[in-house]
């Protein structure tokens, strides 16, 4: 056994009043309710989590339809508007970073590209990397965690040591190092898509131990339960028990950790792009906009505020939603 693990423990179980409300609701509906149903009913009452969820949904739509929205708005994210730039200071003319009816959030210093259009396109990179790297982490973490917990013995030892090792690594440094040694062209991809692909893999790879650890612990405690015993005595094979008996019971913690992992991944992507090892220009990304904004924090503060606020809103929405999902699915609250 290793040092005790710190798992984000369940926060605030519902208060006594809420508990009573659940109890009366349960009494009214005589037929049993599924876990999903109970969770959804709790989530519906959590206004903060719901508003987070709505913002997340909106952001996904924005990312999906960014080109449509940009063309309706009438600005190309890569078009230069040098006429709007003050030649002396290379910052936008006018107040507040060149905000106007045509450029809602102003234009970039030096080349005058439209900030609103670039923020729209930046959402695509952030969400794409955030979601896909979480999926990589979940798939790896679930498979390896379930194997470690179920088989025990040397399988468990090897997988647990690898997880400990990965968690003890200075992750950001390794991610930067790995992303920077990857070639510029691979598997038929070029330019920014290589970087996006590599970021998804690397961030996902460093994320799986968090999920793997939880899944392992849950599997460990569940494999001795009576229902598994029952399945075994009925002659169920190992893989039947793994995938039909254990996996459905792991869905709740997996969902919780996935929703909490996405905002972290979005921040990591932004950090990588901020450090210049993420997507390459001219592809726009919020982190990259912030890294160019360093040079203008005094002369054109709007340029740093817009992508910064975009990251903040996105991550906050995911965090609110994730907290709500966790509270809703927390088995402790249902007792």
């Amino acid at each position, binding site marked *: *056994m*290793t*040092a*005790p*693990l*710190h*798992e*984000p*423990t*369940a*926060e*605030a179980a519902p*208060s006594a009043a809420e508990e009573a409300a659940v109890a009366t609701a349960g009494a009214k509906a005589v037929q049993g309710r599924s876990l999903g149903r109970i969770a959804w009913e709790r989530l519906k009452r959590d206004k903060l989590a719901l508003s987070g969820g709505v913002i997340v949904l909106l952001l996904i739509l924005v990312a999906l339809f960014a080109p449509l929205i940009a063309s309706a708005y009438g600005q190309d994210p890569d078009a230069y508007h040098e006429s709007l730039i003050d030649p002396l200071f290379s910052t936008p003319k006018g107040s507040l970073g060149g905000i106007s009816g045509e450029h809602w959030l102003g234009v970039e210093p030096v080349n005058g590209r439209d900030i609103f259009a670039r923020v729209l396109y930046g959402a695509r990179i952030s969400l794409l990397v955030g979601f896909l790297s979480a999926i990589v982490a979940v798939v790896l973490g679930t498979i390896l965690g379930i194997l470690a917990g179920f088989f025990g013995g040397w399988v468990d030892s090897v997988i647990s040591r690898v997880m400990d*090792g990965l*968690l*003890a*690594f*200075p*992750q*950001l*440094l*390794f991610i*930067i*190092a*790995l992303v*920077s*040694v*990857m*070639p510029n062209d*691979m598997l038929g991809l070029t330019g920014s898509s290589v970087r996006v692909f590599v970021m998804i893999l690397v961030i996902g790879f460093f994320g799986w131990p968090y999920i793997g650890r939880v899944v392992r*612990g849950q599997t*460990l*405690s569940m494999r001795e339960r009576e229902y598994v015993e029952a399945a075994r005595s009925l002659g169920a094979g190992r893989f039947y028990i793994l995938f039909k008996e254990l996996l459905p019971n792991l869905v709740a913690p997996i969902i919780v950790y996935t929703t909490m992992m996405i*905002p972290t991944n979005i*921040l990591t992507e*932004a*950090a990588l792009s*901020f*450090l*210049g*090892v993420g997507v390459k220009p001219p592809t726009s990304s919020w*982190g990259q906009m*912030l*890294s160019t*904004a*360093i040079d203008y*924090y*005094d002369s054109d*503060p709007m340029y*740093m*505020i817009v992508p*910064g606020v975009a*990251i*903040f809103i996105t*991550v*906050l929405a995911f*965090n*609110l939603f994730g*907290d709500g999902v966790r509270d809703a699915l927390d088995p402790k609250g249902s007792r």
Partner: protein
Amino acid sequence: MGHRKTSGGPRSCGGPLAVLAYLIRRLFAAAVMLVVIILVVFCIFFLVPKWAGVDIASSFVGKQADPASVAAVREKLGLSDPIFVQVWHFFKGIFVGRTYSAGGDITHCAAPCFGYSFRTEQDVWPVLTDRFPVTLGLALGAAVLWLVFGVAAGVLSALKRGSLWDRGAMVIALGGVSLPIYFTGLLSLAIFSYGLGWIDGKYVPLTESFTGWLGGMILPWVTLAFLYAAMYARITRATMLEILGEDYIRTARAKGLKEQVVISKHAMRSTMTPILTMLGMDLGALIGGAILTETTFSLPGLGQAVLNAIKTQDLPIILGVTLITSLAVLIANLVVDVLYAVIDPRVRLA
């Protein structure tokens, strides 16, 4: 959580001998880990480029170099040796120093030799020792701030659960964990350094001027601590709430202990366990992960060194910083493990 309880149990917890055995086990694990990290780092920096078809020697010399000088560099730095030989030379260099030679061109790298940067024509070790104090100062200063404020806010929130203070603190904390450091850093620079002119914001070494050093570090400390304090407040609150519901707290109260004693003696001790784990991991990771803060505030620390090295493909520097950082993470975790055994006797048996 589940497996900790099963390993604890009602057995007696052993004396100093058990602690010693535990320590030796952790030390051994840390040593193994360090060797693994060195191997992994070598693989990342020397094998991945090879698979990707990038020649390391020519990337050191530059793109326009003639084949002869590329070959000379390859021979001098031993880049054509098998990977295990290179790892061995590297290990040996750390303890006895190392001499690079090709023809008449000889460079000696003195005993703790962490490699030789061909690009900047200097040993890696002095670069590390130059940069380390800056990063260490940043990490330690911020850690003190975030521990004090984060844990205090979390405990208060848990004790006054549902109050205005609790809600307010948790909203701020949620905002804090959602804000990237390079954004809050830039904002604070724009406001306090440029806008109000209170702080100069330039880094001054501690050896030159204490007040200058404080002035340069205060903004990085506060912005970094804000981010972490938010996380610590959330975790402290959650842990404290869980622990206040435990039976032994009820027992302590039933014995007639003062609430103050119940909280500070009984509840705090258990609350500190997960906080310590986090502190160990975070402090260790910060030694390397301060890259973002150092870039935002242009602090000449390890993070900045490694970022510059990445931009110029200066592998020896990246390798050196990664190793030092990994070492810092390991040491931090080791210290935490030891503190653990002191705080929570159940751990010694695990």
